[in-house]
């Protein structure tokens, strides 16, 4: 009755890091409340995947053709069936592309309160307390969720994945797929692999990465030159890609790529959680931003509060 349920997210046959991050945290929450950790596994032919979910006490699975690939409608229906069968107190869902389609949907359909953008969650005096990173990471909000059931939508990378990576053979319970799965309004067509870009930013030792602070497309060549001098490539945060100033293959962050270069030089990037997720493991992070309160400075090793248009030209000169 007061179990912790984790949505086990997988894409192309592999569990995502978020799954293990949530299992690790879920284990902790279940220990605090003295209850079980249950993983919700939705797919088609999931038996070979279960052993990776050893951190859970139990796996509740729903299998159906329509669940073979993620489908916002099918997965909402199936996850709803799992929630109704398990009746968990806490439901952990990653704040990822898939999780975004599920958490709010469950909240509306089952009338369960939801905390989103969550970077920390704990049990305090029997209450569930969450900390959400709001306003692009500039302000944290600590909240308490009331009710017998709560949904917590957790930012990717918020917790260590290792804590949830455990081989094992948890008990498996299979639920009958909901009848509505044969009458869906959303149908999955295909997965589209990213086009091979001119540069693979995950393989670069040096990335000079630009954000909104670059102001216009015309300023990009200046940064390209700097990247060349450093023997690296130019990458970018989401707004640059959404504006089509650089191809998708250059995007670092949540809907882009995860990078771990030797040097990540962040120019005019404020450091929203979605971006941090993609670059926080770089060996050396140097950030230049005109806003002294930019969250990027919390993650950088070295920071400069200043105008990138003043500093980049001098830096280029000094690098010869």
């Amino acid at each position, binding site marked *: 009755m007061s179990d912790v349920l984790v949505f086990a997210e997988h894409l192309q046959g592999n569990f995502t890091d978020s799954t293990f991050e949530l299992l690790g945290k879920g284990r902790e929450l279940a220990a605090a409340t003295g209850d079980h950790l249950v993983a919700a596994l939705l797919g088609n032919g999931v038996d070979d995947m279960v052993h990776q979910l050893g951190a859970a006490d139990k796996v509740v699975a729903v299998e159906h053709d329509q669940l073979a690939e993620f489908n916002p409608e099918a997965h909402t229906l199936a996850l709803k069936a799992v929630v109704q069968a398990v009746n968990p107190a806490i439901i952990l869902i990653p704040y990822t592309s898939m999780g975004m389609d599920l958490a709010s949907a469950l909240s509306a359909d089952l009338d369960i309160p939801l905390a*989103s953008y969550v970077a920390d969650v704990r049990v305090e005096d029997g209450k569930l307390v969450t900390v959400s990173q709001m306003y692009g990471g500039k302000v944290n909000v600590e909240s308490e969720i009331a009710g017998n059931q709560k949904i917590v939508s957790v930012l990717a990378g918020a917790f260590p994945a290792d804590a949830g990576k455990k081989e094992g053979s948890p008990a498996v319970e299979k639920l009958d797929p909901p009848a509505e799965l044969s009458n869906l309004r959303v149908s999955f067509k295909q997965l589209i692999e990213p086009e091979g870009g001119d540069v693979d930013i995950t393989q670069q030792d040096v990335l000079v990465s630009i954000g909104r602070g670059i102001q216009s497309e015309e300023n990009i060549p200046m940064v390209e030159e700097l990247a060349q001098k450093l023997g690296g490539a130019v990458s970018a945060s989401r707004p640059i890609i959404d504006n089509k100033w650089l191809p998708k293959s250059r995007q670092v962050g949540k809907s882009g790529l995860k990078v771990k270069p030797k040097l990540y030089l962040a120019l005019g990037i404020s450091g929203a959680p979605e971006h941090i997720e993609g670059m926080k493991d770089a060996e050396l992070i140097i950030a230049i931003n005109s806003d002294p309160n930019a969250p990027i400075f919390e993650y950088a090793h070295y920071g400069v509060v200043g105008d990138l248009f003043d*500093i980049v030209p001098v830096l280029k000169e000094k690098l010869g």
Partner: protein
Amino acid sequence: MNIIVPLRQVPDLVEDLEIDASGKDLDREWLKYKINEFDDHALEEALLLKEDVGGTVTAMALDGDDVDKLLFTAAAKGADKLIKVTGDFPQPLSSHAIARALASAIQGMDYQLILIGVQAVDELDGQVGVLLAHYLGVPHVSVVTGVQVTNGKAVVHKEYAGGVMGEFEVTLPAVLGIQAARQTPRYAPVSRVRMAMRKSTIEEVSASDTAAGGTPEIRKLFKPEKGAGAQMLDGSPEEVAEKIVSILKEKGIV
């Protein structure tokens, strides 16, 4: 095809955000607002779809400060119809409350698509678009970057991590949470916004659902801790560049 685009303003993150005396909300007195950037992309995609297949674009927003300007700007960009949703909304306004109010206003309207920004920086309790879809009982897809409409169905691309995309076919009506439009959202010059103010009218629709609920209870707001982060490099651009170069040399990068 009739497309509804709910628009919302969010605090401009370029400004300093201060916490108010209650400790539970931002100090909103001097706060500068701007359109939620994802809503701007949703509006752009709606206008492009209208150019592709015809129809109307309705910009809709909950009543509040500067909401008329927000709607007139949408008209200046090409929205055909402007709707202000009025009501006694619970404060602070949550995603659940916004979605309920929008759903009660939209219920009964003739539409095929609702395009809305996939997220906003102030959504503590989930995404308005997905909540709205469920209150309306229509399907949704979030994190959408490409929309095509043919034969009463939408074919959409949903982004996952690593640049992988899922392609889905969605029966209409539906709600799509837009991540990015096909092109950079268009800009409306002030002169055109002024013209829209003279020529367009804002229709008011009252929300029949202004319930609260579904949200966490805010205990406090606080700024992320400072000091644990970067070692700051000070000085003129010349000095700063010098320091960066010596760090890079020390680490063997140059």
